[in-house]
């Protein structure tokens, strides 16, 4: 064995191995597709995250999906279905939102991971009223809320708490002093809380967003790029049209979610000059992606499989008044729950804004306005 007196041999061996490694080639095409798929991953792939992302415009998204369904009819079945044109539907939705209709929202058995939610709300010109039953499973103790609420009207802004459990034991003990278990408590919110205005503003913004050209263009693009989402049309006895759109189609869902996230997500955004500089191998990848062959196809579509496999979107459109009457999503979430949204005429029933109508005898009342003035008074004394 040749003794080493200089490091030439190690140097030569390192150079040779280094060359071999450099020439070993880069990532495989399959790996590249998986990576590109991972980079394209967005939280919007699950309904929960989609709703969270678009919580400010939840109404708009729901109505927008209905608009997409209606637009689909206008584009896909212009001759065989009802004579519904895309622009007409968009205009009618815009008009309806401007008219500030009474919106009735019902949520039944909505279970998404640790969240369970049921409730009903009415949003009108005079206020917001509703019932909510919510439970969030924590590590040990769940957070549970069962309450009625009313914001607006002569009674101000209030929450009638029928049940409230907090996940923290100490907080629960403290809460027990204010709200004894098994007893209803009416909580009057400070007059300047203006929750009703905030809720109405959020909904209004959602409707404005629906009307915005950007969102409309997304829906139009969805329809034009892939017209057939499996929409069916049924003329009903009362003259309205029922549109049904299954949401269990992974590809359709992926595209809708991606479109709602932003049109750029499925477009690599390469300019002509930039494309030239990309290697041929990358070009092939770009082509495969353009054909929709993204890594998403190589991975299980968990969101669609678990939450939307049986989900269906129903929308009722009235050609006579050119208005959307109802939008409903059924069969989604772990408990196959539903959300129904109706657009009604008129205003909210004043009775719904009056807590006395639903309070049991002996209900305690906590007026947070009084607490607030007490705290302000104490603060003033301290300052003095």
């Amino acid at each position: 064995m040749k003794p080493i007196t200089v490091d030439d041999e190690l140097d030569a061996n390192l150079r040779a191995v280094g060359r071999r490694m450099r020439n070993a080639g880069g990532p495989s095409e399959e790996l590249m597709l998986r990576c590109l798929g991972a980079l394209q991953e967005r939280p919007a792939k699950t309904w929960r995250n989609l709703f969270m992302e678009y919580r400010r415009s939840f109404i708009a998204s729901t109505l927008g999906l209905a608009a997409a369904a209606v637009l689909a009819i206008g584009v896909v079945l212009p001759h065989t279905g009802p004579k519904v044109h895309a622009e007409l539907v968009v205009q009618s939705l815009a008009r309806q939102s401007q008219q500030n209709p009474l919106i009735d929202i019902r949520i039944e058995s909505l279970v998404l991971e640790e969240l369970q939610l049921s409730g009903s709300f009415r949003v009108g010109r005079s206020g917001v009223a509703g019932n909510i039953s919510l439970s969030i499973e924590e590590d040990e103790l769940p957070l549970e809320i069962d309450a009625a609420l009313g914001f607006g009207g002569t009674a101000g802004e209030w929450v009638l708490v029928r049940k409230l459990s907090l996940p923290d034991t100490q907080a629960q003990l403290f809460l027990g002093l204010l709200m004894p278990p098994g007893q209803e408590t009416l909580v009057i919110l400070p007059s300047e809380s203006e929750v009703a205005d905030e809720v109405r503003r959020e909904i209004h913004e959602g409707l404005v967003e629906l009307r915005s050209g950007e969102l409309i263009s997304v829906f139009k693009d969805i329809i034009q790029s892939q017209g057939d989402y499996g929409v069916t049309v049924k003329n009903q006895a009362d003259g309205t049209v029922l549109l049904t759109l299954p949401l269990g189609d992974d590809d359709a869902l992926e595209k809708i979610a991606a479109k709602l996230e932003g049109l750029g997500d499925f477009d690599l955004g390469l300019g002509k000059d930039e494309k030239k500089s990309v290697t041929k191998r990358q070009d092939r990848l770009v082509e495969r992606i353009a054909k929709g062959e993204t890594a998403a196809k190589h991975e299980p579509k968990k969101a669609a499989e678990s939450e939307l496999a049986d989900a269906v979107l129903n929308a009722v459109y009235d050609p006579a008044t050119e208005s959307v009457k109802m939008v409903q999503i059924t069969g989604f979430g772990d408990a196959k729950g539903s959300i129904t949204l109706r657009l009604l005429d008129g205003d909210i029933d004043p009775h719904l804004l009056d807590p006395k109508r639903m309070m049991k005898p002996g209900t305690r009342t906590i007026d947070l306005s009084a607490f607030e003035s007490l705290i302000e008074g104490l603060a003033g004394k301290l300052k003095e």
Partner: protein
Amino acid sequence: MCLREAFLRTAESVYRFILVRVAGDRETADELLQECCCQAARSRVGPKDPPAFETWFRGIARNLIRRHWRRRRIDRRLLSASHAEGLAGVAAKSATEPLPSEQLESRESSAALLLAMQRLGRKDRELLLAFYFDGRSTAELSAEIQVTAKAIEARLRRARDRLRALLAGGNGVETA
């Protein structure tokens, strides 16, 4: 420029960066590259222009590689006794004699050298990897580290000395 295009432009370079740092184990390099992309997508704040993207992306990769080695505790625990013996033989030979070309073509020779490098100090390891495996010249490295080319050559020589000591079974870990 979108995140995916920036990735397309730098993927090969980053992949090699990972590959040589996981001792040429392609399966691990594949996993880490994909995990890098997942982390990049989650962060949503990465730069989009390729040079800045590559630096940022390599930072993610470096952390993942460190975690990888921490989990695997380098070679001794993960290798079978016979495999480890074979690699040790190749490693020892590579330090003391020119390996025949067919042996240099084998995965073992790469793995043996790269595994030994993992036991070097960070500065030595990064310098050797940059010079021999990333294919960067002494001029490039001197410009980057802002020392003379002769200083780079001297550092390379010292790093090789320590590597040779490691390959021969001594203590070549950098103390600086």
